């Protein structure tokens, strides 16, 4: 193998996987992992660590793979991340650690994400337990939301000896990891095992509890020394165009929740799903890719409709490639104008308009404008809105935590306007990525430890 090329992970054949929900990427073999690890130059000043939101000591864990000491490698990763098997699968590494890799200057960066996944999967297989725990310090912390941010925060706090209780409104822990990201990208068994490893350390998880209604933030303040809000940004956005409430128009969250959380992809599922023959998923992020690839697997002629071009797609690159291989069609530089319906309010098509790219704006993204007179109709009987999600503050009912004009929780670091309450993840930033939510959970743990010691 060329030193400039990264080892290619085995994947399920696109034709086969386009019809199942089994994991697409099969992980590195031992030989592949070893070969890939040996490409690492172990830089004296490792840039990759800077690129990692939780600053995993990347060259150090890769060094242990070279030595064949996977347990030690797992220990090193676990010092920075309690959810390695998940990060290895869903982080946008090409924008983070791998984008900084020196190898990338002349060829391909080290496949850091794949190596992380390899180590974490081995750890699960062999039952390594590298999460060390200090003596109980008598302090209690409540965490609202069992998503990636809350779980990370819980992992870091329990290791430091805090008593940690997570409150979750759904019947399963994991947040977006269980309701959003599909089985073929992140097997739910992996999530379950990572959650169980936290429970083994003593994290208590109370499911089915809507904070704000069953218990208020004030109730939690009486019982706990600190509270972390990792409530996410779950409220799906709609465009506000004509026909959006027709039968056949869904939020990506609804499709994904039915498929992932409620297992509607299985024929014997008790929760139904309504599938069209041809579906347009509006949006270009990871959620759009997850929705469109799920529909494709269920036999739908599944299209992405995105207003910018391929280069601007915000989704993880691997997901876009996988989607294309699986037969998802991409309608780029196109935007919906209105959804057409029949007399029973069923979707019959969609009027769309072509878009033209302009100069990059202040945020570095290229602007888009409608091309006059280019309106046309596409045939479809299903439209899925994957336009991002907004904050949902049902949990904050009756609390005085300060919110911004956009409805996001205002923080300094992770401190909110109430000194006992900390917040992070999508509830603070708006919809972002799993790893950024984890970074916030990690930072919150640090600040909670400081504030309580």
């Amino acid at each position, binding site marked *: 193998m060329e030193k400039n090329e990264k080892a290619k992970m085995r994947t399920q054949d696109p034709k086969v996987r386009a019809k199942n929900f089994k994991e697409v990427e099969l992980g590195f073999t031992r030989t592949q992992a070893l070969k890939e690890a040996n490409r690492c130059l172990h830089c004296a000043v490792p840039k990759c660590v800077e690129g990692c939101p939780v600053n995993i000591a990347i060259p150090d864990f890769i060094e242990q793979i070279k030595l064949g000491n996977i347990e030690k490698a797992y220990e090193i990763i676990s010092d920075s991340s309690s959810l390695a098997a998940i990060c290895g699968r869903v982080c946008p590494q090409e924008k983070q650690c791998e984008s900084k890799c020196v190898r990338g200057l002349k060829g391909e960066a080290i496949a850091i994400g794949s190596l992380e996944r390899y180590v974490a999967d081995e750890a699960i297989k062999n039952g390594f337990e590298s999460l060390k725990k200090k003596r109980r310090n008598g302090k209690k912390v409540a965490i609202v939301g069992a998503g990636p941010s809350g779980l990370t925060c819980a992992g870091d706090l329990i290791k430091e000896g805090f008593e940690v209780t997570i409150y979750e409104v*759904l019947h399963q822990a994991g947040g977006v990891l269980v*309701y959003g990201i599909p089985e073929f990208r992140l097997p739910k068994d992996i999530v379950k095992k990572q959650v169980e490893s936290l429970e083994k350390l003593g994290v208590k998880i109370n499911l089915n509890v809507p904070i704000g209604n069953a218990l208020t933030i004030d109730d939690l303040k009486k019982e706990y020394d600190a509270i972390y809000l990792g409530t996410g940004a779950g*409220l799906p956005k709609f465009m506000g165009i004509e026909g959006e409430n027709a*039968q056949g128009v869904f939020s990506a969250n609804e499709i994904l929740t039915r498929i992932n959380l409620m*297992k509607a992809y299985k024929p014997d599922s008790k929760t*139904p799903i309504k599938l069209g023959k041809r579906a347009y998923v509006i949006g270009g992020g990871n959620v759009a890719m997850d929705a469109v690839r799920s529909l494709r697997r269920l036999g739908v002629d599944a299209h992405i409709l995105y207003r910018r071009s391929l280069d601007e797609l915000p989704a993880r690159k691997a997901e876009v490639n996988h989607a294309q291989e699986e037969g998802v069609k991409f309608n780029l530089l196109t935007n919906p104008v209105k959804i057409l319906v029949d007399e029973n309010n069923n979707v019959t098509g969609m009027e769309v308009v072509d878009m033209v790219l302009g100069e990059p704006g202040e945020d570095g993204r290229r602007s888009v404008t409608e091309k006059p007179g280019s309106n046309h109709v596409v045939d479809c009987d299903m439209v899925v809105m994957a336009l991002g999600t907004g904050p949902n503050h049902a949990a904050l009912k009756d609390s005085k935590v300060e919110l911004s004009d956009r409805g996001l929780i205002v923080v300094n670091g992770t401190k909110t306007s109430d000194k006992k309450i900390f917040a992070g993840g999508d509830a603070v930033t708006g919809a972002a990525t799993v790893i950024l939510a984890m970074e916030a959970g990690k930072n919150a743990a640090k600040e909670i430890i400081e504030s309580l010691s």
Partner: protein
Amino acid sequence: MYKVYENKQISPDSYLMEIEAPLSVKKALPGQFVIVMAKEDSERIPLTIYDYNSKDGILKVIYQVIGASTEELTYVKKELFSVAGPLGNANEICANPDKFMNKRICYVAGGVGIAPVYPQVKFLHRRGLKIDVIYGSRQANMLLIRDKIERVCNKIYYATDDGSFGTHGFVTDILEKNIHHYDIVVAIGPIPMMKAVAEVTKKYNKKCIVSMNPLMVDGSGMCGACRCEIEGKPKFACVDGPEFDGHKVNFDLAMKRMKIYKEEEAIKWEEMKKRLAKEKK
């Protein structure tokens, strides 16, 4: 797991279930709902809270068998896999009863809609408000919990579609005759009934509150399946409702949206019947 104390049939198509769910009732207020799952692989079903006792942590719900998942519920004997609640917002009047002391209030219930009406009337009765109730259903044996509601309301009027009990006709016939006695009307029941009540109250310029019960998955503001059109804008019944101003709701759209999964649900119901018959053996 949540312990089930009772799960009994109370009419040809309705059941009463008593569940131990302390956190769901500790702070519950009339108008809120819960989401239950019979088993780990079951559908999430939203049910409005019928009665509760926060001291002993008992939650009571009344449900009508309308499909696979409610059929499955009737087979529950000892425990439910999950109960999440309370969800949604409290009834506007119950959340602030002092503000409504001098108002003349009428509740209109249709079918199992009496289940969420009862705790509201009881709550207000205990705070000294006199509430009239108009209760309608298809036929006499589908009128539920009559003894309970009669104990907490001021006046009660009944209507049945077939005339087997009370007035032969619709609740709105009774409402329109008596509309001048009231300032506020709260309607909970099938969408066509709520739509009709909204029209009558609009005609006489009376405030109208309705409680929407659309399709729902998570019930916490995440999926948007429950969106209703309120003054032309989408609102989520789970976190923005379930109550809305009856004069602002697009009922025709709500009726159509109830039917989205009709075909799929019919298939699931058949599957469920077979599965339950098998399990029984």
